[in-house]
């Protein structure tokens, strides 16, 4: 969407590049501010016998220790279920769990003081640290979730070809550049202003209220911007916001908590690692008849959002394929590791990698190209359009994205070129192999829980014609604020610079949903559109009176309000409205239509619409060392009628690279005691600038207006591109396949580190 024929840039970009954008740790500090640091457990499970902080008394500076016993309200911040304490009370359930906080006058003093607090513990049981152990011991956080369609038993029996297997899918740290941070300012009459780096200010408000035993109305939860979120600050930001509020409540001083990187990585959740066991029945051509599958996810010590993450994994393991009979059981395993949480894609990537891995295995078994297997299994009128969870895929855009990606990537020619390359390498006794893979992706848009699909906005027009915009969404770099500002500017037909963007604040728009599930612009854009239109209609009424004409003769255009040959500037009309005592302020509200969901049966219509995409990746492998890289990537992504093409392309490129990290170099390592060993960028390697494809083409699907009535017929973009990185994982498998006769690429687990690749090559 253009605003006055140009696509707006991110509203904060010049402040980003000059260092003038203010993050929470950059805000001015009140003179009596205290800094908090968490005291973390050193065992993975056991009882707390005693907390001894006597050593702090000898320090030459102020310290104060706060533990669960000091909590005035409930020690509880579970976003879905209870049983999730802010601070461990008498039982520790993972290594690194916060047991208390220390307050001091500087950040360094607070951190140092935590090392002097002695925690006496008793190890009661052996910690559960991996998925198979949890499964064997029936250690679950939820009842098994069963998604069933057709009759797997009979269709499996009827299948001429059967295959079974298992594989692992690694977790991923969010590694937002700004670690968790929160600052609480106490006011009179038990009022609190909580600034926190959160994707969910309302949940922070609720969590703080519960912990302090204070009603929501007394708590303003705010955030201007996050230094990255990616899901890691959806539910988990509340833990740290609650700690700062607790400190402020007890000391009646402002309290800030900013986690060091190693504390952040140790004590905050990550993408769920999965283990998958499958049996599949299929025809000689590779058509899937029956799929019987078991998904184990690592929920960690408490549930957090693991239930919905599993739901999305289950509802995305069909990807673009019609599966006649399916039985998929999701087990959310309880382990003694940090509670895993939302991460861009929210189970979708694990679900989609699952089916893509399985199709690859089928293609290996039948010795056919995997594209042929895909071809005959796509959702189509012929095969069927009903998903395993009951929703009909009304207008699949599979063919459309495929024909675009073939063109963009020159796929078929490159398959031949790569075959030749591999042959030459073999003949010349050289160690390099290439692989190329294509992958389509379908992603469902809406929170699976219908009640979360609502958004609110608050728009003020001032008598000077300037417009102040506030809504429930948070800005974490994804460009939501500029997109919503564009919507408001389009409504009033004024330049987007005239819209003043403000911090997310529960005092302005209450009862918001998390900025998550890619839904930010769908929900808040529509709410802001509604708020703006309410004001605009009042202005039209007034203009009609001024011009003594009908309402339909009033046109907003180019910053002016025109009626025949007369016109007023927007600010003149705004001033005139004020003089005539017309309200120029309105809230706006939106709820997503058409969706319903039965969480027990896992059936319904959970997604308002689907986004579609496709990618082709080319991988290069050194069979001597297991080193690999991506040489080229081509992407076509369906953004509907894009609200902002530049922002959307940024989401696609960045999401894809983040997906590459998940599948290749990002590896979480734990000690046998359950201690996370990769707690900083020196040991946890996310992609650097040389890890991106040398040739990288991204194209938005053309003429792709959303068939549903979304804001300007646009589509969500935040999460879907991340899943397209699976194409690189598949390309690596193709390269392994080309390494030698009898290679076993289907054994490849993620992440495909050099070590993992060499394991498969040397098997």
């Amino acid at each position, binding site marked *: 969407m253009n605003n006055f024929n140009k696509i707006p840039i*991110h509203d*904060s*970009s*010049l402040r*980003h*590049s*000059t*260092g*003038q*954008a*203010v*993050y929470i*740790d*950059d805000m*001015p500090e009140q003179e009596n501010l205290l800094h908090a640091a968490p005291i973390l457990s050193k065992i993975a499970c056991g009882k707390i016998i005693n907390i001894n902080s006597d050593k702090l008394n000898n320090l*030459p500076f102020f310290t104060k220790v706060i533990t669960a016993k000091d909590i005035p309200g409930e020690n509880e911040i579970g976003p879905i279920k209870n049983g999730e304490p802010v601070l461990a009370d008498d039982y520790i359930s993972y290594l690194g769990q916060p047991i208390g906080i220390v307050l001091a006058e*500087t950040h*360094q*003093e607070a951190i*140092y003081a935590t090392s002097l607090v002695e925690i006496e513990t008793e190890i009661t049981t052996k910690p559960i640290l991996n998925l198979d152990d949890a499964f064997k011991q029936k250690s679950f956080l939820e009842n098994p979730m069963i998604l069933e369609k057709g009759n797997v038993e009979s269709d499996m029996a009827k299948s001429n070809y059967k295959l079974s297997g298992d594989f692992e899918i690694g977790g991923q740290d969010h*590694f937002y*550049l700004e670690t968790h941070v929160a600052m609480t300012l106490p006011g009179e009459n038990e009022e609190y202003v909580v600034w926190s780096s959160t994707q969910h200010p309302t949940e922070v408000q609720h969590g703080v209220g519960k912990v302090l035993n204070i009603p929501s109305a007394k708590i303003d939860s705010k955030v201007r*911007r996050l*230094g*990255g979120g*990616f899901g890691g600050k959806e539910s988990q930001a509340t833990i740290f916001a609650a700690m700062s509020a607790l400190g402020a409540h007890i000391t009646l001083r402002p309290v800030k908590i900013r986690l*060091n*990187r190693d504390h952040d990585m140790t004590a905050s959740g990550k993408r769920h690692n999965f283990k998958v066991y499958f049996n599949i029945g299929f025809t000689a051509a590779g058509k899937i008849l029956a799929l019987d599958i078991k998904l184990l996810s690592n929920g960690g010590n408490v549930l957090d959002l693991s239930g919905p993450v599993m739901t999305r994994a289950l509802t995305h393991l069909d990807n673009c394929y019609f599966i006649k009979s399916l039985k998929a059981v999701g087990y959310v395993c309880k382990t003694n590791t940090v509670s895993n949480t939302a991460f861009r894609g929210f189970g979708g990537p694990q679900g989609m990698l699952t089916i893509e891995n399985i199709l690859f295995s089928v293609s290996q078994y039948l010795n056919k190209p995997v594209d042929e297997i895909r071809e005959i299994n796509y959702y189509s009128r012929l095969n069927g359009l009903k998903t395993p969870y009951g929703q009909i895929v009304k207008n699949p855009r599979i063919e459309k994205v495929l024909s675009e990606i073939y063109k963009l990537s020159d796929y078929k020619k490159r398959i031949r070129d790569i075959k030749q390359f591999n042959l030459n390498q073999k003949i010349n*006794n*050289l*160690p390099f192999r290439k692989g190329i893979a294509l992958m389509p992706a379908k992603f469902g848009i809406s929170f699976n829980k219908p009640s979360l699909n609502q958004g609110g906005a608050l728009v003020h027009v001032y008598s000077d014609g300037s417009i102040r915009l506030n809504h429930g969404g948070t800005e974490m*770099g994804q*460009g939501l604020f500029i997109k919503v500002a564009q919507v408001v500017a389009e409504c009033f037909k004024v330049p987007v610079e005239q819209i003043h963007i403000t911090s997310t604040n529960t005092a302005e728009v209450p009862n918001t949903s998390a900025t998550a599930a890619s839904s930010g612009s769908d929900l808040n854009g529509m709410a802001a559109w509604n708020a703006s239109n309410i004001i605009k209609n009042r202005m039209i009424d007034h203009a009609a009176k001024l011009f003594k004409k009908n309402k339909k003769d009033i046109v907003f255009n180019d910053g002016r309000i025109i009626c025949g040959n007369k016109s007023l500037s927007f600010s003149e009309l705004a001033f005139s409205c004020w003089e005539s005592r017309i309200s120029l302020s309105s809230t706006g509200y939106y709820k997503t239509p058409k969706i319903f969901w039965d969480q027990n049966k896992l059936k319904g219509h959970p997604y308002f619409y689907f986004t579609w995409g496709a990618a082709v990746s080319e991988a290069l492998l*050194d069979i*001597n*060392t*297991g080193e690999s*890289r991506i040489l080229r990537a081509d992407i076509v992504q369906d953004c509907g009628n894009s609200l902002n093409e530049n*922002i959307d392309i*940024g989401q696609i490129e*960045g999401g894809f*690279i*983040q997906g590459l990290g998940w599948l290749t*170099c990002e*590896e979480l*390592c734990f000690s046998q005691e359950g201690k996370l060993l990769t707690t*900083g*960028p020196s*040991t946890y*390697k996310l*992609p*650097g*600038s*040389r*890890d991106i494809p040398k040739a990288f083409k991204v194209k938005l699907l053309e003429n792709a207006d959303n068939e549903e009535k979304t804001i300007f017929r646009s589509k969500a973009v935040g999460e879907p591109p991340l899943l397209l990185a699976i194409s690189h994982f598949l390309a690596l498998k193709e390269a392994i396949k080309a390494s030698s006769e009898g290679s076993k690429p289907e054994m490849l687990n993620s992440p495909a580190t*050099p*070590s993992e690749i*060499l*394991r498969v090559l*040397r098997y």
Partner: protein
Amino acid sequence: MADLKNTIFVNSKKVEVNNVHHDITLLDWLRNHHRMTGTKEGCAEGDCGACSVIIDENGSGSSRPINSCLIRLGQVMGRSVTTIEGVGCVKNPHPLQIAFTNEHASQCGYCTPGFIMSGISLLNSNKKITDETINDAISGNLCRCTGYSPIIKAIKSVAKNRITQNNSQSINKIKKITLGNVTYLKPSNLKELKKHLDEIKSFQFLAGGTDLNLQRPIINQKEDKIICLGSIVELNKITHLKEKIVLGGGVTIESFLEAVRLKMPELVEILQRFGSPQIRNQGTVGGNLCTSSPIGDIAPILLVLNSDLNVFGRNGSKKINIKNFFKGYRKNVLQKDEIISSVEIPFANKKNKIFSWKLSKRYDQDISTVSLAINIQTHKNIIKELHLAAGGVAAIPKMLDNLSNQMLEKKIDDAIQFAIDNLEQYIQPISDLRGSSHYRLEAIKGLFRRLQTCLIQNKNSLSIMDF
């Protein structure tokens, strides 16, 4: 905490240092004492680059990017520092800042100031602006949002209008500074160093500090002395001789890289992959050897080139061969009062081929899982001379003399096959977070296969980065 009044030039302005803790980092001082919050903390371990600033190079007039989280204020006294605030502001932005905006090179924006500082450093240098030099310049900066493409484009887009500026006004003549309970001594030559060594019993050496400052004590009650080696002229010298190159122990890795770029091209890749520009500008040759990590970064290549180390201490100087330097996990032969004053790296025999390979999870800014350095001479496909050293396979960077002796006088193919078949007898690597023992063995075998191909097909490089 009464301190001597000292100054640092920040963005060309004199700033007095008052009331600071002795081991405060430049980053914390900028952010907490002066609320210059454009410089960000992303990791506090020198691996993300969000805290990058530009600092003058110990009075030489040129300036380079470093990680402000890894340098103590005591090391910065009297020097001049440029932060993001000194580059430009919304009302008066630098062309690179405008380019970042035009190319959509920021999303969450938290890493952006660091990238701007790295980009400015490149633009201010005399390097050609290519994909290669840009990637190298930003190899110490992590971005989690954009996927880097727009950042690379933005830097490239201003290459045409480069403005070389240098506003370094270092005075750098401070010889003693007290911060809190700690006194930083900055001798300017070995004679002054000797005097300190004779007079002071308890002290700690500090070179670049990229390793030591990671482990800095947060709160230290007792009085302490730190001897900074950065200003000692002899330690910063690079001497090119006919048969060798002599690097002062205080020469930064980046200067090492520049010094050998033409004369010892086989060292370039391993040095280019050493940390990041920010780390290489601060870390020193002597410091890297003295940390004596089993990985050793530059150690394996110095081992196979048969380098000598000149040691300086209270009792004078001596020379030891690097093979006799490492004693155990992070242990070496130096006494508490001894430093490496210089490293003598002989040029290899012209008939020899030198290889130095590193394997890691990520190409740039990663610590090797294993590394292998090779100095080899063959004649008619027979191995005539061979020196092998490996990193990441034992408690120290290890010469594999027993193995190489077995490979001598054998045909290349047979010798390599011997190494592959018998490797387990010569190295017993451990499993850790960088890789399993199995992987380390298999990877070294893979590097032997690479060696085989390089020798037989006469190739200097066989890397996925060649594509």
